[in-house]
């Protein structure tokens, strides 16, 4: 057995999970699909004394729609999000991002909340949340609080969630503009591996083809996924011509803070940041034009 010993509790409800977390504090970790947690435990990077299993909490598995946003329960499996056509129509960036998340076998177990809570700075779903400005609902025995993705991610593999809090649901903004397009792209050693750099973009165009709204972000080039609201704001009013898009890619790369590791140097990552940011914007633009 690779994992260090721990005690296990299967929660039947969110209230029960919060009770267990309140009792065990930071000696407990939540497990749902376990696709990020188990490798870390197998390598003994983590040795929690308790695992609180929320995988059987049915109330955390749902996809629902309000007028302005989609709601996904934290325990909803990645494969369920991937298959939902309504979600793909209203928050298209999610399905585009999910195509790069692990493999069929891991998406069948992995959950949306687990990926966000794990907060890998090169992971796809945290980047999608950051770019779209998703809202994250955390629940504890003391009540619930709602945070912007930008507040939630605090560093590499770190969030501001307290040890007694459980991620409950995520709210994904729905852009109402008719001509909206989004795109997700990344470079990794092999398909399904961790991204060296990932880029996501979403844009809206008016009837004349001028950009009325834009969002752009990069993963793998900082301690958290990064959004570039100022760079995106400079695109407003343009027709997203190739020159403007390339300029935005350059600006985003200049603002990013990539590090070096075994897979890629900081210099190469900055190059990828520039190229991929522009590519994501171009693809998003072309989809918006075709919409």
């Amino acid at each position, binding site marked *: 057995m690779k994992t260090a010993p721990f005690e296990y509790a299967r929660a039947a409800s969110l209230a029960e999970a919060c009770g267990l977390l309140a009792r065990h504090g930071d000696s407990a970790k939540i497990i749902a699909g376990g696709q990020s947690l188990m490798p870390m435990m197998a390598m003994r990077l983590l040795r929690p004394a308790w*695992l609180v299993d929320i995988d059987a909490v049915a109330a955390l598995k749902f996809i629902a729609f309000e007028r302005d946003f989609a709601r996904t329960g934290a325990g909803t499996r990645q494969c369920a999000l991937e298959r939902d056509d309504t979600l793909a129509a209203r928050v298209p960036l999610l399905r585009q991002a999910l195509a790069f998340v692990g*493999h*069929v*076998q*891991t998406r069948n*177990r992995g959950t949306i909340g687990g990926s966000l809570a794990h907060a890998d700075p090169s992971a796809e779903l945290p980047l999608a949340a950051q770019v779209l400005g998703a809202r994250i609902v955390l629940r504890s025995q003391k009540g619930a609080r709602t945070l912007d993705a930008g507040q939630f991610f605090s560093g590499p593999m770190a969030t501001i969630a307290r040890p007694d809090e459980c991620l409950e649901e995520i709210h994904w903004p729905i852009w109402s503009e008719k001509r909206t397009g989004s795109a997700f792209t990344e470079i990794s050693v092999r*398909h399904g591996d961790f991204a060296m750099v990932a880029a996501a973009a979403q844009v809206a165009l008016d009837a004349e083809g001028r950009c009325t709204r834009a969002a752009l972000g990069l993963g793998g080039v900082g301690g958290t996924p990064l959004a570039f609201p100022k760079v995106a704001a400079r695109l407003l009013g343009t027709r997203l011509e190739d020159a403007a898009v390339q300029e935005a890619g350059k600006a985003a790369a200049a603002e990013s803070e990539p590090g070096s590791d075994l897979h890629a140097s900081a210099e190469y990552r900055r190059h990828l940041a520039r190229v991929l940011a522009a590519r994501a914007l171009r693809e998003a633009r072309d989809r918006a034009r075709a919409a």
Partner: protein
Amino acid sequence: MNEDLYTIEVEVNGRRRSAQVPARLSLVDWLREELRLTGTHVGCEHGVCGACSVLLDGEPVRACLMYTVQASGHRVTTVEGLARSDGSLSVLQDSFCETHGLQCGYCTSGMLIAAQALLDANPNPSEAQIREAIAGNLCRCTGYQQIVEAVRLAAKRLKGAR
């Protein structure tokens, strides 16, 4: 040290199995070491190689990325559960033999599980869909070409049989 044991009940290849297991026992270790179902292979033990793939309630998952306690109340199918009831090879397994879709055999059980799940959901997959379905399984011998051929052949044979 004394570890707490947890009572589980899992249906494995159609048979109900009860056991007492420590929480940290991975599903693949339980299948192989307690049930002696050694057809499921164990490779990297952290979710990269796909050798340990099994079906959980009909969907392919990695058995090294599940604790056995989490499988309680669920249905597991291993490669042993793919063969016909008389022990002869399934159409998919036979197609792997036919196209030389295996050499050392290490990845084969995981490939079979991934491919079986694909064919169950999509009896007429395109080549791109076959490649996507086995993208999470590493092979170091055949270079994937014959594995893709095997799945294509199995799909053809199964269509003919229907």
